[in-house]
C-alpha cells in the first residue's frame, strides 16, 4: 500500500510516531485508506519510510489505543471497520478552518472580507 499512499514526514515537525498517526487519520478522512483495510507490518512500513521500526510500533500502539486500528492475531494490522472516520474528517476540517482563521487574523483581515475571499477561492475551483 505504501506505493500508492502518500506519507508526509518532516523531521522538524515533532515526533515521527505522532506524524505517522496523523498521516493514517488524514488518509482515512480523505478516503485514501478504507475501514477494514490492511496496513503494512511495522517493519515493512519502517523500511518503506526509512524510519526506525520502534517508531512505527509506537505509532501503531497509539492508533490501536485510540480505536483506529486493530491487530488480528497472526493476520496483521487492520483499520478497524468501526474506525471513527466521520470524527476524523470533522477534526481535519476544524484544523484547516482554524489554520485559515488564524492566518487571516494575523493579516488583519476582518471576518466579512475573509468569508468573501473563501467564497471567491471556492468558486475558482479546487486548488491542487
Amino acid at each position, binding site marked *: 500500500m505504501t506505493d500508492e499512499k502518500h506519507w508526509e514526514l518532516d*523531521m522538524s*515537525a*515533532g515526533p515521527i510516531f505522532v506524524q505517522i498517526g496523523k498521516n493514517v487519520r488524514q488518509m482515512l478522512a480523505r478516503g485514501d485508506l478504507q475501514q477494514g483495510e490492511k496496513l503494512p507490518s511495522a517493519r515493512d512500513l519502517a523500511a518503506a519510510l*526509512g524510519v526506525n*521500526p*520502534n517508531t512505527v510500533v509506537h505509532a501503531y500502539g497509539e492508533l490501536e489505543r485510540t480505536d483506529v486500528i486493530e491487530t488480528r492475531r497472526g493476520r496483521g494490522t487492520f483499520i478497524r471497520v468501526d474506525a471513527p472516520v466521520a470524527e476524523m474528517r470533522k477534526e481535519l476540517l476544524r484544523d484547516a478552518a482554524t489554520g485559515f482563521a488564524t492566518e487571516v487574523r494575523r493579516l488583519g483581515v476582518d471576518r466579512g472580507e475573509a468569508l468573501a475571499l473563501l467564497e471567491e477561492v471556492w468558486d475558482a475551483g479546487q486548488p491542487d
Partner: protein
Amino acid sequence: MLANLTNVTKRYVRTEGIRDLTLQFPAGEVVGVLGLNGSGKSTMLKILAGLLMPSEGVAAVFDGPPRRNRARVVYLGETDALWTWMTPADAEKFMAGLYEDFDVARFRELLGSLEVPLRKTKAMSKGERGRLRLAMALARSARLYLLDEPLAGIDLLSREKILTSIVKEWHTDETILLSTHEVAEAEALFDRVIFLHKGRLALDARAEQLRSEGRSVVDAFREVLS
C-alpha cells in the same frame, strides 16, 4: 547492557581520540554516533570492537573485554578494504570460513536487495563496494553491530538501499551503533543519538524526545557545533 564505556579516554601520540566517555548501550537500540570528522566516532567504535585499547577507563562488551568478544560483534570499518580480485562469491566463502554466525542464505538475499553486481570488486563502483561490505556485515547474526560511516562517499541511491537494509535486518534484541556525518539522511533511523565533539560527549538524547521539543536531530547537531 550489551556494551559499556566507563570514563574511557584514548590518546594518540599527537591528538586525543576520545576523552572521558561514559556510555551504556542496552539491547534493542539503533544509535546514531554523530559528529564531525575527527570528533572521535571511529575511535569509540574501534574500542568497542576490540581493535583499540583505551588509554584510561574501561570498555566492556557482553560484560567482558571487547578483545575477547570480537567474534560476537559485527564491525564494519571505515576503510574500503576488499581484495580487488574478490567477487561476492569469494566474499561469501571468506566470511563463512571466518565467522560461525555468517548466514549464507541471508547474504545472498542481501546481495539481491542491495543490488550488488556479481563481479570482481575492482570492477565495482564505490557505492557497489559499500553495499557489498554492508551485506557481508549484516549477514552475520550478532547482538551488537558497529557500523562506521557506512554511508560516507556513497551515492544517494546506494545510501537509501543501505538504510532500508539496515531497517529490514535489525531485530528488536540487537543494538546497532552507526556513525555518520550524513545526519539529515539517517536521522529517522535512530532511537538514540550521541553527539561527539572534539572527543567529548556533547549530547546523548532520544531522537523522538528532541523532536517533541521542537528540534530535529539536525537542529540539535547544529546547536552542539555552534
